[in-house]
Structure formats: C-alpha cells, structure tokens
C-alpha cells in the first residue's frame, strides 16, 4: 500500500528529493557555522547573527471551466532566505531609516535534493551576497543617524529570544490528481446552466510547506503544514458595462478535508445565483447609515482597519500613521469587544483556520496574544524588532520567502460580550434605520477582501470590497440585492459606532499581502451592527458586454 502511494508520487514528480543525502538541517548548520566563523574573524563590520531558512513547497493545482480542464500543474521548490545582522542589537543593518526598509534576502531557489555540495554552494553564495549589502547598509545607517534628528523610539533593532529546537515535519504531500481532475470537470459543468455568466472557474490548490531554519543563536527548526483550497469564481458584465464577479472558497489543511461534491455544488449554485441576481440589481447610490456586516465581512473589516494598525513595526516607523501607538492601556474599541490573535488555534468548530503556525519566520514559538481586552488595547503584534515598552517578540514575525520579516497578523478572533441572536440583530438594524430616519440600511453579506493605507503620506482610510450587498427596508419590504458598492471609512471613527454583535461566529480565510509578501491569515468574527457606515460607488468599466451572443453548437460549419 505504502509502496503504491510512493510510486504514484514518483510518477507525478519524477524526483527523489529528500530521499538521499544528509539531512538538510545538518548541511545548513555546518555551512552556517563555517561562514559565521570566518566572517566573525575576518569581516569588518562583523556579523553578530546569521540564519538560514529553507522553505520547501510541494504544490498541486488544477482548474476547470465548463467541463474542461484549464490548468494543471505542480512541483517541488525550495527557496532560501538568508539573514545576516552586522553591528549590534542596539543598532544593526535592519535599522529603519525613515521609511526606507531593508531588503537583503532573495528567496533564491536551492536544490530540492539533499545533496550537500549543491546546498552548501548556494548557502555560501547567498551569504556572500547578503553580507555585502548588509555591511553597506550599516555604514549608511551610521552616517544617517549622525545627520538626522533623534528618533522618537530608540528601541533596539533585534530582541533577545530563546532559540527553539524542534523537529516536526508535516505529513507527506498527498494529492489525488486524476480524481480531482474529473471532479473539477464535473463540478464546473454546473455553471453551464447559467448562460448569462461569461466566465467561470473552479480550482483546487494543495500545498505542503516545510520550513527548515538554523541560526547562530542555536535555533534548529523543521516544521510546516498543509494548505488546501477550493476557489469558485464567476464573472459577468451588466448592460451598463459594470464587471460583476462572485466567488466562494473552502480551506482545509489537507485536500481530504475539503468538502464533498454536494457542498461544493451548493456553493457553485449560490455563486451563480448571486451573480445572476447582481446582473439585474440596481446600482447603489452613495450612502451613510446603519448596516449589518456579516461575520465574514466583519472579519475583513477588523483585519483591515484594526489588524494592520497594531502590527508592531509600524509603531516605530515615523512615516506610519501610528493610529494606536500611544493608546496602550486605553479604550480603542467598545468595551464589549475583545480581540485575540491566536496562531495556535487550528479550527473554529469544523472550519480549519488558515492563519495557524507552530513557529513564526524568526523561529519564535506561536502563542495566543490578547490584543484587546474589553475594549482596552494591551499590546501589539510583535516580531523580533522591539518597540518602546515591548522588548520581546510574541511570535508574529512573518514573511513570504524572498521578503524580509515584519510583524503580521495570524488568526484574528473577535469576541463579544454583547451578543444577540441574528434575528434580533436584524430587528435592531431596522430600529436604527427608523431612529435615524433613513429610507433603508445595508446588510453586507459576502466580501472578497479589502485594503487599507497606514502610511502618513496616504489617507488613513480603509476599503472593504463586498460581493453581495442587500438594502434593508424598515417597512417590511423584502431585502433588495444591489451592485456597485464599496464600503469605505476611517479607522477611529468606525470603531466607536459598533453597537452590538450576533452570537454566531463566521470565518474568513485568506491571504494577506503587505511589506513581507503574502501570508495565510484568518479573521473570525460575529456579525456586527454598525450605527453608520459609508457606501461609495465602485469604479466601473466602460466596455459593453460582448457584441455577439455566445456561440452555440448549432452554428457549426459543415
């Protein structure tokens, strides 16, 4: 049985990776010691810290549309990230110089065989390249420090942490390729029942990620996890040219944890029906008034307006907006709300969370971090870059291979002590609409994502991009689906207006893109009732829908 599984794996990826040669971690540690020893002895400025991380990604992707495959690929890759710190913890080459961020690592591809020479060569070449730019930047920083005014936050550049030693490689990558191909072909045909949909796709992606890390502080880590994801998407064009899209996704640690066909089919039908509805829906007008954000939408809302502003490194970067830098110990949310970031939490109910890990990308063990307790800000998300009053990491230094680590979000969990049933929350919305004398309010049902700017140069604002939005009328009329709405706002004004939450938590799983690349995250929240949100019109394409009708087979030539 085991032999068959291996044989199939070998057929898909005709490689013998990890099957021979000395363990990667050992090769990495030996080469690190050799390089560090010589650099300490001969290089000026000398490094005080060196670490290597190799991220191994085994991936499989398949996609289909209308009964035919449109993509099928996969492979094994390893990327090397090298960190060298020259100078001292007090001041090193990573020191932030007014918005200029350091970037030394390259995420260089490295051998997927455990052939020592191949790995050593690349480690050596990257160490040399990284050292040169690290030394150069330190010299520039020292000059810069002398000519600029003193910084407000004079914390160290690198914290002292206990070096972790831990080996727990993730389960072997398993992906039933042919089975998924035929499932996707079959499932994607569901969209054929909706002639108004221009294009549609269903894709599956499975990835097993293993991280190998060694540092001169003694860290020796081999850990990782799986990711599996189904994404359903559909696109159509309204008569006025507006591009409309709906989508849904399922995430799990392992492809076997993805839902069965009937559940996927139901999601496809929902995506298609929503899109069909949107095609005929009226376009929104700009609006300010009360709204309910579903748990899904509210998760993204918190991720954008709150999550990005409590990332530690922003608190000492003087080009950042620093909305909450001086708010520790003070109320920043209504007192019935608490926010926890917990990368150790793997599930909520039966839903796998996307933002978990055992160790962050600086080798610091993951732990739950209560950010807000009863509305009071307690701390920040910390990497090993200390800020005033927070000298230690709390395991939130993260990156995509090839990027430098900064503090990032993990699993954001919103907890509420003012919970009501969803039906009651809706009654409260109607009451609020009446109280404000508004003609209607909004129910933001599904969102695709959002973005925010935290920089002082930009607007301190956020945008959440809804897919499915309803107008809710106070007179008992049925809810009305609308299109072309974006949800906008500014952070501080928005928090004060949260009135209550539902008692049912919903999860948004996704990938967050920021300075250190894309990292997997989750946001789980109950639905929230907000006294006032602002809806603005979405930018719209000027192109008309296709001029010719869709082809049908009866038109074929003879």
């Amino acid at each position, binding site marked *: 049985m085991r032999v068959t599984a291996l044989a199939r794996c070998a057929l898909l990826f005709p490689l013998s990776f990890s099957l021979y040669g000395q363990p990667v971690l050992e090769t990495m540690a030996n080469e690190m010691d050799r390089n560090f020893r010589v650099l300490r002895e001969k290089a000026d400025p000398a490094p005080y810290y060196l670490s290597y991380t190799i991220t191994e990604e085994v991936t499989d992707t398949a996609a289909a549309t209308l009964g035919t495959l449109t993509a099928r690929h996969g492979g094994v890759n390893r990327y090397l990230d090298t960190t060298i710190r020259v100078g001292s913890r007090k001041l090193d080459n990573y020191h932030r110089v007014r918005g200029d961020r350091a970037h030394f690592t390259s995420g260089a591809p490295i051998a997927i065989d*455990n052939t020592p020479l191949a790995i050593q060569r690349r480690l050596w070449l990257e160490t040399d390249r990284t050292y040169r730019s690290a030394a150069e930047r330190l010299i520039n920083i020292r000059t810069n420090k002398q000519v600029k005014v003193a910084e407000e936050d004079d914390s160290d550049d690198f914290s002292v942490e206990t070096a972790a030693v831990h080996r727990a490689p993730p389960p072997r990558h398993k992906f039933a390729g042919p089975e998924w191909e035929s499932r996707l072909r079959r499932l994607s045909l569901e969209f054929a029942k909706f002639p108004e949909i221009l294009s549609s796709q269903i894709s599956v992606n499975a990835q097993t990620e293993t991280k190998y890390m060694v540092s001169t502080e003694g860290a020796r880590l081999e850990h990782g996890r799986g990711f599996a994801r189904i994404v359903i998407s559909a696109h159509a064009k309204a008569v006025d040219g507006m591009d409309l899209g709906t989508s849904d996704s399922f995430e799990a640690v392992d492809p076997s944890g993805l839902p069965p066909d009937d559940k996927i089919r139901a999601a496809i039908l929902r995506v298609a029906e929503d899109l069909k509805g949107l095609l005929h829906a009226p376009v929104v007008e700009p609006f300010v008034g009360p709204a309910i954000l579903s748990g899904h939408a509210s998760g993204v809302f918190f991720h954008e307006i709150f999550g990005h502003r409590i990332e530690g490194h922003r608190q000492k970067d003087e080009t950042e907006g620093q909305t909450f830098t001086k708010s520790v110990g003070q109320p920043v949310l209504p007192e019935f709300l608490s926010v926890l970031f917990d990368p150790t939490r793997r599930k909520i109910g039966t839903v796998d969370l996307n933002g978990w890990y055992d160790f962050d990308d600086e080798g610091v063990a993951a732990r739950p971090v209560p950010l807000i307790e009863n509305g009071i800000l307690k701390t920040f998300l910390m990497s090993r870059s200390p800020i005033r009053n927070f000298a230690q990491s709390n395991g939130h230094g993260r990156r995509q291979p090839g990027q430098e680590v900064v503090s990032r979000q993990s699993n954001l969990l919103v907890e509420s002590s003012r919970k009501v049933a969803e039906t009651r929350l809706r009654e409260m919305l109607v009451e609020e609409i009446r109280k404000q004398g508004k003609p209607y309010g909004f129910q933001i049902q599904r969102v695709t994502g959002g973005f925010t700017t935290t920089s002082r140069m930009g607007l301190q604002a956020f945008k959440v991009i809804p897919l499915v939005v309803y107008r809710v009328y106070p007179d008992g009329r049925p809810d009305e689906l609308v299109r072309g709405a974006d949800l906008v706002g500014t952070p501080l004004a928005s928090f004060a207006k949260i009135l209550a939450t539902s008692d049912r938590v919903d999860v948004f799983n996704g990938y967050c893109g920021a300075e250190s690349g894309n990292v997997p995250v989750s946001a789980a929240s109950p639905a929230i009732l907000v006294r006032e949100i602002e809806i603005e019109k979405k930018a719209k394409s000027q192109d008309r829908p296709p001029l010719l009708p869709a082809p049908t087979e009866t038109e074929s030539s003879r």
Partner: protein
Amino acid sequence: MSRALLALALALAPAVFGQAGGDPILGAMRDEMRRALGIQFDNLEKPYYIEYALDDARIFTALASAGGLISATPARFRAPSVQVRVGSYQFDNTNYIGSGFGQRSEMGAPLDDSYAVLRRYLWLATDNAYKSAVQTIARKRAALKNMTPTDAAPDFSAVKPLRRLEPVPVMAFDEALWTSRLRSLSAVAAANPSVTNSLLEVQAVRNVHYLATSEGAEVRSPEVLIYVRARASAQAPDGMLMRDAVVFHSLDLNAMPADAEMSRQIAAMSDNVAALLRAPIEEAYNGPVLFEAQAAAQLFAQVLGRNLALTRKPVVEQGRGGGFASSELEGRIGARILPEWMDVIDDPTQKEFRGRRLFGAYSVDMEGVEPSALTLVEKGVLKNFLLTRRPVKTYRASNGRARLPGSFGANSAGFGNLFVRASETVTEAALKAQMMEICKTREKPYGIVVRKLDFPSSASFDEARRILGQPGGSSQPLSLPLLVYRVFPDGREQLVRGARFKGLNARSLKDILAASDQSYVFEYLDNPAPFAIMGAGSSLSETAVIAPSLLIDDLELQKIEQEYPKLPVVPPPAAP
C-alpha cells in the same frame, strides 16, 4: 439525473466536432471566425482580417547545480492568441504606438479537446480584440490628423492562404531519465574546484502550433525542441567575473549528443573558466583578428543577421516617443557590404547539412507563409532583407521570415539557416599564416584568434546592461569575446581576458581579408533581447549560421573599464 445528463453531453462533444471537420481546435477556430467576421460596433467598421493562433504545448523544464536538482517542472498549457484588424490592408489598427496584439479571454483556455469551450474562449477574446482594434484605429487616425505621413507603405500585405495540416506524431519524452541525466551533468560542471557557480538547465518543448486566418489559411504544425544549457562562472583574483557556457540543441527529442559527449564539453567549459581566471588582461590590440570556427558564425549572427530585418517606425503622436533603433543596413540595397567573393543565403528549406539536421529549418512561418531560399548578399552586394507581412518602406510582400512576436501589432523577421559562403578560400593553416604575415609586416608582437563569443550571452541581465551602457559602444555592440588568444610568431598561443571589441559593426565586414575552406555550423536559440541573452523573453526561434573561419583586418580590442567586487571573505565550500 442532471449530473448524468451533463456527463452524457460531455461524452457526445467529440462526435459533434468530429463532423465539423476533424480537428476540434481548427473546427472551433473556423466556426467562431466565420461568426466573428460579422461583429460590428454601432456604425464602426467590421474586421477585415482575423487570425487565431494556438500553441498546444507540453514543456518540461529542469534545473540543477552541483549535483543537486533545483526543480523539475512539467507544464502543459494551451495559449491561444487572437488578432483582429479593422480598416483595410492599406490602413489598419496596427503600426501605431498604441497597437498591441494577442488579446486574451477572461477565461482559461481549455486543455481538453473541447470544441465548445474553445469557441467560447475565442468568442470572448475576439470581442476584446475587436473593441480594442476600433479604439486603436480611431486614436491612430486622430494622431495622423496633424501630421504628414512619411511612410506610405500599407499596414499589412495579403498572401495566398496556406492550407497545411501536418499529422501530429507521438512525441514521447522521458522526464525521469532527463532529470537524472541533468543531475549528473551538473556534478560534472561543478567538479572543477575553480568554478564557484554553475547551473544546468534542460528544456523539452513538445508543441503543436495551430493557425487559422479569415483569409482561409489553416496550419497545423508540430514543433519539437530540446536543449541543455550549462553555465559556469568564477571570480578572478582581481574580482572580474569569468564565465563560459555550452548549449546542446536538437529538433529531435532522441537525437541529443550522448552523455559522454555532453560531459566532455561541459568539463571543457569549466576548464575554460578555470583557465580564464589565470589569464592576463588584454590591455589594447589593434590589427588583424582571426575568427575561428563558431566565432565567425557568432559574429555574422550578430552584425549581419540582426541587421537583415528592417524596423518600421510606428505612427506616434507629435512630441511623443521616438528612438526606434533601425538596421545599420537600411537604404543600402545594391551597396557592397562584404568582399565580392562572398554570398549570404538564408535557406530554411534546407533540412540537413553534412548528414546533420539543420536547426534553423522550418516549413511555415508564424504568419502562415512558406519560406524559400533567399539570397541576401550576392558577390558582396546587399540584395534582400528578411520580411514579414508588415510592409516596410518599399518592401511590400512577405518572404516568410516572421519568426518572433514583434511590436505594434506585427511580428519580427529573423533568419532560419544563414549560409555564409566564400568562393575564394584558403586552408585554416594558411589563414593563420596570413594573419602572422600581416603582424610581421606591421611589427606586431602577436596576432589575435577569437574562438568563441558570448552569444547567445550567458551574462546576467545586470551585466548585459553594463555592456550596453559602456561608453563608446555603438547602438548594437557586439557581445563580449569569451575565448581570445594571442598568437605569437613561433605558434605559441596565450589565452587573454577582459577585453572587448570597439566599433565592430556591419561595416567592418567589408574588411574581411580571407575565409577558410571549412564551414562550421553554429546553432542557437534567438530571442529579441540584446545579445539574445539566455533565458530572456518567452519566445524563441531556432536558427543556424553556417560559416567559414574569417580573417578581418584592423579590428580594435580594448580593456573593459569597470570596478569589480572584492572576492568573498569566506572561501567556497569544498567538495565533500
């Protein structure tokens, strides 16, 4: 119930296109094109020409270094491209600064042979292409309102539509075998302890190219290509980066050189790098240079080959853009550009040379035009250019040389098998003796033999940019010479490094003094990047240059003036 029904529909699909004329891809193209010709936006013009092309490709790529595999990636994709021209052959939406082609659909192209889904894809892509075409032609007309056009050539030339459906053979490729072969070869490259960085790459392309035009052309041509590329580099004691590369190609997946032969040449490449590390720098040289064997072909590929295609300047709004590089040979038809005893012929129809398959042979170009042998230079006089369906100046008709995607809605011209022939030749030994004789007369201590140019270049993009930006360089500088030897009167040879040619361009070819009686075949993958730099761009064209060794007078080599990085503080890791 519904599931069963849909599955049945899927099973029936092949039968439907089966009736439509055999090939589901061409069937979908033909049927959708017929419909698309009727597309019209309000009262704007209809398309006068539509072209559908599709590459149905399986590409396997693997990388390895120092005995370790870096990646082995099989990829399967179908890449359709759609062109819509509105207006007329005389004046259309191309040749304008804002023209672009190859519209994609918002949906993924089907990998299965689905007639219906491919039609749907083409429907959406054609709609995008048509909308963009009518907008582009309007902008082009507006731009011309205030200008007197300088180039009265039509925008597109008509051709007799070609119908050429080649059978698709089974194209088997053993990925596992090549993966392990590459791993072993990469160990060979790294075996020389002086070589600190090396990379091996194999790519096998199995493609079926489809083309259908509204003029009635239908082409199906299978294309197979495999290459192994090896590169090695190291830093000389003064910091200068020395490198060498060797490439093996074949149009037959089973006709690559044997492992022993590849190993031998890869080891030689590493030895070259090691030898260059110890070689003295050539400070300055002025005099005769002997381009031996492949170096002569590499020289012709660059200084003649690249200038045989003409550039058409697009319509540009007043005060915008400009600076389009033009051929050094433009306007020189009828002028002597080589000695009168030399001819240059491009012959893509010649499939073999001395029993070996010629790499630049092709039967139909990207635009569905069949090439025939073309005399470019006769008795030293320039007779022809390489042409596509985009007219340039007075050249109106294509001669089947569209080989790479070009700019502003057209394709670029390139050659296939470029034969450089000499009617007066001497032996290799006599050629060298002639050089030494000149050196003696001019009291020069040594002559120069070049055995290899860095073309296609294995330089990094940064390095290529530096070479292009060197002061005193021409707009099309020659790639660096890799293997350059001083030859002393006693016959002794000495490898030198760190020099480049100054001012060597198409005009220098008039100073060719003599050619050898041996012809050498140099094969390479051309791409639009400077020095055809390896790995640049996503399009490649297979080419060959067949040339004798050449002696050229009055060439100048000068030292490359540049700052070099220090050597690494840490010595390289030793082999275990």
